[in-house]
């Protein structure tokens, strides 16, 4: 498969099937953090890093432990049901462990990166977009290389969406919004509009 195939997976993950705006994943941190632009960039970068690391690891576990091993009844054609309890537990533990590892690694080797991303890392363990990325990877039966591109692309999609929303919310400080619409309610309406704008990308033929 050529470069175009990977480019199309990447474009799909970033724009057309944006993990936040089309699949509603990672909304909790999306709404909570998007009040400030620099914090949004921070958590966006952290999501990119963690998704790019965990998706391939979970792919290996899926391919060589969960799919073929003693539990061979987990046939990929059934995986869209996502009913296999071991899959959930294994994936979430890998994510929690990886988040912890990335945090320790950063603290040791890159103090400046740790200072900017560190506080967001614990939040990411329970960010649905990370687990969602792994579950979608299984559901769509990606190859390893496709998984890496998909994980990275989904992370970039999250980064793009959260920075876009944060910028709009920043501008809105100067607008006169009805008092009880302020905050989350307004952020939801804005996300709806952003999502509508992103839907325009679905016209792209890949």
């Amino acid at each position, binding site marked *: 498969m050529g470069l175009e195939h990977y480019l199309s997976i990447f474009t799909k993950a970033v724009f057309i099937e944006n993990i936040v705006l089309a699949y509603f994943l990672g909304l*909790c941190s999306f709404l909570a953090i998007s009040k400030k632009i620099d914090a949004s960039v921070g958590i966006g970068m952290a999501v990119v890093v963690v998704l790019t690391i965990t998706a391939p690891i979970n792919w290996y576990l899926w391919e060589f432990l969960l799919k073929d091993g003693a539990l061979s009844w987990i046939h990929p054609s059934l995986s869209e049901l996502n009913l296999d309890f071991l899959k959930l537990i294994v994936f*979430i533990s890998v994510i929690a462990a990886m988040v912890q590892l990335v945090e320790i690694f950063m603290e040791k080797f890159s103090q400046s990166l740790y200072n900017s991303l560190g506080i967001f890392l614990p939040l990411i363990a329970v960010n649905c977009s990370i687990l969602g990325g792994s579950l979608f990877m299984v559901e769509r039966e990606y190859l390893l290389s496709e998984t890496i591109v998909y994980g990275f692309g989904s992370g970039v999609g999250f980064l793009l969406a959260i920075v876009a929303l944060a910028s709009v919310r920043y501008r809105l400080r100067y607008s006169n919004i009805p008092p009880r619409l*302020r905050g*989350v309610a307004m952020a939801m*309406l804005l*996300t*709806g509009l952003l999502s509508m704008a992103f839907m325009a990308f679905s016209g792209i033929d890949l």
Partner: protein
Amino acid sequence: MELFNSESKKIISDPINVNNPISLQVLGICSALAVTIRVDQAIIMSLAVIFVLSSSNVILSVIRNFIPNRVRIVIMLSVIASLVSVVDQLLQAYMYDMSKQLSVFVGLIITNCIVMGRAEAFALKHGPSKAFLDGIGNGLGYGMIIIIVSFFRELFGSGTITLPNGGAGYVLFSIPESWYAAGYENIGLLVLSPGAFIILGLVIWFQRELIGIEEEA
């Protein structure tokens, strides 16, 4: 033990009303939107969340004195993940069509911030009976909002109201053919993701007007 004194009632009713997990605590929105295309999906999802939330609250509250603080997140996640697996298996066994429709979103209850949030904020600090009531209350508050959102999305988006049954769902109401013949059309946007965001935004706004809570910025 007085289970139904005023304090217990407050623990149950607050999350439904003035401290709603979705509209005021802003937790658990991820799954709230994906399952609101049809009312029956929203009802099943609410039941699943009520079950997971109340049981995880009770279990974590019982073992709260034995959990070392540093590893509490991993312990919480494993308790929650096991409970979600139970729900997953039950759905697969008894409501196969429904589990197929909900796809990855049942699994994503694990990372639903409501479950983690309530465990962290309430269950680890209170006794089991209170934690149970807190779980029921927050589950009901969550269910109320997603059922309202799904009602509007299904009625105006697809023109039906579907209730859950063992199979593909029981259609309680659908907009008569004569309306379509007279020029009525469903709003296709509501079925797509922007519709979910906008309806939920309006519901949150409406509820905050009712309760009278404002947020800064």
